[in-house]
């Protein structure tokens, strides 16, 4: 009986010590964090320019060689109204890239055909000398009603916009 009591005491003691430690281990945050006023979604697509033509234009991609063009395609939703932000609603909407001028997004028809949707887009031509590696860009919006939103890439290294050496 004494042994059983000792064993029980040890188990309970260990549980009492371990439980707070486990409880203190924070869960990774839910992406993209928040709270935010305006939801922003952005994708990077291949595009052709004078210096470089990718094998497929308009393809989703996150590895881009120096001198190539990155096409940002973006949409935003004001969470208060659930309305998609259009050209009438946005005060500022741009891509912020480290050590580069902001890339202004414009609202226009994407694709061809009568039913082609309207979406925000902007193009960045990667300078010849831009540093290789991950580009932690952000897409920022301020609406005319003064509401803000931001898009940041999920911090998964290989899935982020990355500049590689030109071929």
């Amino acid at each position, binding site marked *: 009986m004494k042994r059983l009591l000792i064993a029980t005491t040890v188990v309970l003691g260990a549980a009492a010590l371990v439980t707070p430690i486990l409880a203190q281990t924070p869960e990774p945050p839910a992406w993209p964090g928040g709270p935010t006023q305006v939801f922003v979604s952005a994708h990077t697509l291949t595009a052709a320019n004078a210096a470089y033509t990718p094998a497929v234009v308009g393809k989703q991609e996150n590895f881009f060689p120096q001198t190539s063009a990155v096409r940002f*395609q973006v949409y935003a939703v004001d969470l208060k109204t659930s309305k998609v932000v259009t050209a009438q609603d946005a005060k500022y909407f741009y891509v912020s890239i480290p050590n580069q001028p902001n890339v202004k997004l414009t609202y226009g028809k994407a694709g061809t055909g009568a039913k082609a949707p309207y979406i925000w887009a902007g193009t960045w031509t990667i300078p010849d000398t831009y540093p290789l590696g991950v580009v932690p860009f952000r897409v920022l919006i301020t609406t005319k009603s003064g509401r803000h939103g931001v898009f940041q890439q999920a911090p998964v290294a290989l899935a982020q916009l990355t500049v590689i050496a030109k071929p």
Partner: protein
Amino acid sequence: MKPFRTAIGATVAVGALAALAAPASAQAPYPSPKVPVPVYADTVSSSRGDVKLSRVCTQTNFFPRRARVVFRAWAMDSTTGKPLTSLEIKYAYVKIPGQPNLALNWGTHGTAPNQVRFWSAAWAIPADYPLGVVPFRIVFKTETGQFGIFQQPAIEGQQLTVTP
């Protein structure tokens, strides 16, 4: 006075008809004018599968048969302005034509100390899956009964595409 009233009536009627007709011809925003539960989604390559792409875990929308497509997604709660986690979602899945629905899992991604959590699911493309565009949909249903639906814009070159 009567012709004037008639003219006004006709003008109002024409205006109303024009307003009704407007959505079909005017600027149709992607994904739709109103979005109760906005969703981000993309597709990345997998390190698993019978056929592996040259780079793993990178964004692409072209996948050969027998490769694995990893769908990544997150959705936003309009009332709180925060991401929807497994606590707020009743179900979440990817609907792929000709395939069983693929449940999205809430999980941890990335490497410490920069790990984050979002939704994902992997799809092994069958060897006989039809070539071409895969018009998949991602569906979230919240515990409060709201739906979030993601569909890629129907733009050439941008949609998930199965290649030989």
